[in-house]
């Protein structure tokens, strides 16, 4: 039983299209009756590897994702990745998670609204593939106690629900909660500017009444839906996605404080927002074509 374990891990490594370092728990019980590898966040590396295998063609062939400054993402230790969020079903989240896991071989946990947990099937799949509900306690545990990478979109649903006419205009960054969490956990914030996700699934129209009736955050009518019919519900346009990782931002404040100065938090949040907005403009200036980059 004990000797079997590394062998299983080895096999897992070779069948996965994208290899990833599987965090082995040190205090394994010798006769562990566990049968799956679902961790305390509901994430399963096996399901994640499967999802990566399925997503790989979309990532490298469809979006032809291109990174800049990937080396700025810390190779170890916790860090809070912060990005802009766009497209009715945002492609930025899976692209960032996939890209970092593929290139850096580090798992990324995607923090998102708890709303996902309430959805049958989707919620479970979301958790198995690395989704975690964005509670401050969860983020703290991931970043500080488990030294993981966590990805947040401070715009929340305001990002993906915005209309195509507002593309690449960053929304308000919530209440700066992400800065406070990074301060408390004592980890850097790494901003990532994404270009291309806006055009992958542009929102033409929103139906707020229908969204309210269905109890979902927003109900978009997308260009994909209009041109491709039902297929457009899930299939994004093949826009070229480019990602730029900015310099990590370290806050020189003591970790584990109960509260941080609100003005400092808002200032830092606003600063990160400006940085992201400016790099997005910069990337758009260099972009000749939506489809070819």
């Amino acid at each position, binding site marked *: 039983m004990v000797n079997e374990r590394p062998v299983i891990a080895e096999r897992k490594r070779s069948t996965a299209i994208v290899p990833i370092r599987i965090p082995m728990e040190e205090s394994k019980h010798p006769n562990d009756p566990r*049968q799956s590898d*679902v961790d305390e966040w*509901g994430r399963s590396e096996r399901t994640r590897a499967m999802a990566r295998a399925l997503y790989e063609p979309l990532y490298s062939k469809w979006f032809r994702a291109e990174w800049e400054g990937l080396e700025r993402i810390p190779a170890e230790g916790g860090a809070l990745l912060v990005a802009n969020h766009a497209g009715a079903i945002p492609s930025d989240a899976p692209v960032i998670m996939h890209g970092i896991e593929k290139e850096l071989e580090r798992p990324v946990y995607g923090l998102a609204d708890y709303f996902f947990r309430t959805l049958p099937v*989707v919620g479970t799949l979301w958790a198995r593939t690395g989704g975690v*509900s964005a*509670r401050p306690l969860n983020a703290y*545990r991931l970043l500080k106690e488990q030294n993981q990478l966590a990805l947040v979109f401070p715009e929340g649903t305001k990002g993906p629900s915005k209309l195509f006419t507002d593309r690449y205009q960053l929304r308000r960054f919530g209440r700066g909660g992400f800065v406070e969490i990074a301060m408390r956990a004592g980890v850097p914030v790494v901003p990532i500017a994404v270009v291309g996700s806006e055009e992958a699934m542009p929102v033409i129209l929103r139906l707020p009444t229908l969204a309210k009736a269905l109890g979902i955050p927003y109900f978009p009518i997308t260009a994909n839906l209009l041109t491709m019919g039902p297929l457009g519900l899930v299939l994004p346009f093949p826009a070229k996605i480019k990602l730029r990782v900015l310099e990590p931002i370290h806050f020189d404040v003591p970790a584990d404080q109960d509260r941080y100065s609100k003005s400092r938090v808002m200032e830092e949040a606003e600063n990160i927002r400006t940085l992201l907005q400016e790099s997005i403009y910069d990337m758009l200036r260099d972009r000749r074509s939506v489809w070819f980059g």
Partner: protein
Amino acid sequence: MIQALEADPSMDVILGMGAQTPTVPFERAEFVRADQTYSILNRIVKATQVDTILHTFMITNSATVPQRAMNEINVIGTMNLLAAAGASGSTVRHIVVKSSTLVYGSSARDPSTFHEDTPRGSPASNGVERALIEAESLVRDFSEDNPATLVTVLRFANVLGTHITTPISRNLSRPLCPAIFGFDPLLQFVEEDDVERALLHVTRGSIPGLYNVAGDGRLPWSEVARICGTRLIPVSPFSLLNIRPLARFFELPEELEDLLRFGRGVDTRRLASTGFKYNATSAGAVESFIRALRLRRQSGRKPNSYTYEHDVEQFFRHSPSVTGISDN
């Protein structure tokens, strides 16, 4: 529990109390069959001059008793017990309360891991949770009013093990077991021996405070079912009306409905920091349960860990020819 206390020679007098007669006889503990009315409790506390009360009678499973009775036991019972313990002239120095992680509830808004001081994610939606929250608040009031008395509250996760039967264990021991379609919650269990050991640990060590008690690690419900060799039957997630009739068919008390959707995890480092070592992880608790179940199925009887030979015991107790010290 009492059996474990009996094994400890430092305990002078052990007095069991309950509304039902115990199913096994005790070696040296005495047992009073009484309910939790104030006058009785008060007299017992006064007469016996007890110094430690283990309050383990709270009900955490709404299927066993009707709502009203459950409230009576958990809230009024706790209130009476605390009042008796806090009465003037009381000799009680330590009260250990057995509560449940049900007080955290289970909802989509919850953090993945509850610490002892994390507030609930959503208001209590069912009677058991409400009663436990109220009982715990009574305990908190008591500890504020009686700073000289040590108060320990242990919040236990769902218990599985060789003997205990709960709605979860009954469901898992059947060939078909309910699951809510599209949900595969992460659950945390505590092995029943660890429950007993935790109670003993805080009692012997006189450790006050509020602690979560749960085995390490969390398992998805589907994996629990797989380990137990039962098949999950998905129940429609959309309407509770849908679940109610099925609740009779399966055993699905209301406090399980949310748990089977969103699960619950607790942080157990606080108890570990007092020096408590768990024997079993969450998965270990499931394993211990299913191993006992297999034995019961194949041998047709319950495994017996405690043997009490009445005649032999009576001989040791009363025969004049026994002069040496028996092995208690």
